[in-house]
């Protein structure tokens, strides 16, 4: 069933913040899979334990794009520890709410960010986030 989006969602969908790839990211998170139709990649740059930049690329519906955009906005400039408190609900709320069937997009956005932090931690400390397991296996390329 079609579900109208809030103005905030439409704004972030039509004018996504922080979209694009990042040169030499400190961490990369890739979540989602083509079966459910949403794939998110998030890139972060970290300096002094703070997320100084975040970017994303997303294949997905309006909510997937908007939540990616909002998630990057919410973590940018925050110390890692604080940024990790980001929940999918916070993303959805910041967007003025999401239709029930679209809440999974906000979960993906949260996970994409956490996957990026996890990647950063493994690279820098050799140990990832405790208890980190995204719903879907991160994806790289797949054959077309």
């Amino acid at each position, binding site marked *: *069933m*079609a*579900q109208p*989006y809030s103005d905030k969602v*439409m704004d972030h*969908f*039509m004018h*996504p913040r922080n*979209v*694009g*790839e990042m040169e030499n990211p400190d961490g990369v998170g*890739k979540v989602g*899979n*083509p*079966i*459910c*139709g*949403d*794939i*998110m*990649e998030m890139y972060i740059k970290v300096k002094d334990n703070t997320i100084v930049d975040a970017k994303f*690329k*997303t*294949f*997905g*519906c*309006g*909510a*997937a*794009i908007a939540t990616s955009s909002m998630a990057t906005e919410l973590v940018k400039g925050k110390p890692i520890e604080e940024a990790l408190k980001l929940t999918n609900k916070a993303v959805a709320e910041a967007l003025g709410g999401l239709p029930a*069937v*679209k809440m*999974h997009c906000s979960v993906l956005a949260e996970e994409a960010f956490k996957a990026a932090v996890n990647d950063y931690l493994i690279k820098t400390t050799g140990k990832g986030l405790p208890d980190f397991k995204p719903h879907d296996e991160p994806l790289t*390329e*797949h054959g*077309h």
Partner: protein
Amino acid sequence: MKKIYLDNAATTPAHPDVVLAMQPYFSDKFGNPSSIHAFGQETRSAVEAAREKVARLIGSSVEEVVFTSGGTESDNFALEGVAFANEGKGKHIVTSKIEHHAVLECCEFLKKRGFEITYLPVDQYGLVDPQQVKKAITDQTILVSIMHANNEIGTVEPIAEIAKIVKEKGVYFHTDAVQTTGHLPIDVKELGVDLLSLSAHKFYGPKGVGALYIKKGAKLVSFLHGGGQERGRRASTENVPGIVGLGAACALAQVSKVAPLRDKLMQGILSRIPETRLNGHPTLRLPNNLNVSIKYVEGESLLLNLDLQGIAASTGSACTSGSLDPSHVLLAIGLPHEEAHGSLRFTLGQATTEEDIDYVLEALPPIVQKLRSMSPLYKGAK
């Protein structure tokens, strides 16, 4: 803003003459057709006149037309009606993987109630193979249901050929003609079917009314149980304005002439946007249907962008339906999941103009480009 409606397979606007025909039957001629008094007799005549118009459009006799609340009820009525009336003979039903949910979900219901269902595959164009139908029929088979044309990819199935095989086996044959009625010529005798579903709102009639053609002699139990309306075949006070509207839509129906515009749109998209492809059969397809896969982008985000430019289209993508599965039809013709998620359906109508097509051909490429630039799948293809 310009508003361009290219979602005529989802529903069509009622034709002004259809609405005009319905008008008197709300408050003025409002009697219950089952009533013996003058108020009832005048609506009874209106219902019977509408029945004649439906019968004329599909080449049946009037007694073979039963009014319903739409395509879904017609499909459910046909399947459950035959299943429950003939289960003594067998409990096996043959259908295809690309039927409308009205058929598929009804089959799943029947499966839970002890019936066995064979879902036939289709080829890359969405065609059912008549020989596979033949092979699927066992001595337990009581019904075969194959749609006349698919609502997503527009493929028109070889119904007459399949019907011949099915009837040789002495099995009932139903076709869902919701997408073809009023657009293609239909003759139930030439098609050779026992049951045929149609729905008014798909061809400029009102929503909430349809019909089931039931060949004389076919053994069916009722779907709606109650009063003796429709000669005992479908209970409930007749939706008189709706039925009159369906009749009017049948009388107005014209074979679709939009194929050239559709072809222009198709060629425009395929030539202007790289990595796109046509879904469905190149020639055996509904004249108003175009379904294309646009790689690396997801359908809903395409739709939303089009909508913001006043263009209404549709997609087989998960996100519009509230389910996470992409179109079962696109998967059945072999599309990978991400392409199934990135398909667009444009369905033209009587009102579609060449300017509409030009407008879409201007609007779509930049949208695709923008979404691809955000897509993590696209980089791999650069």
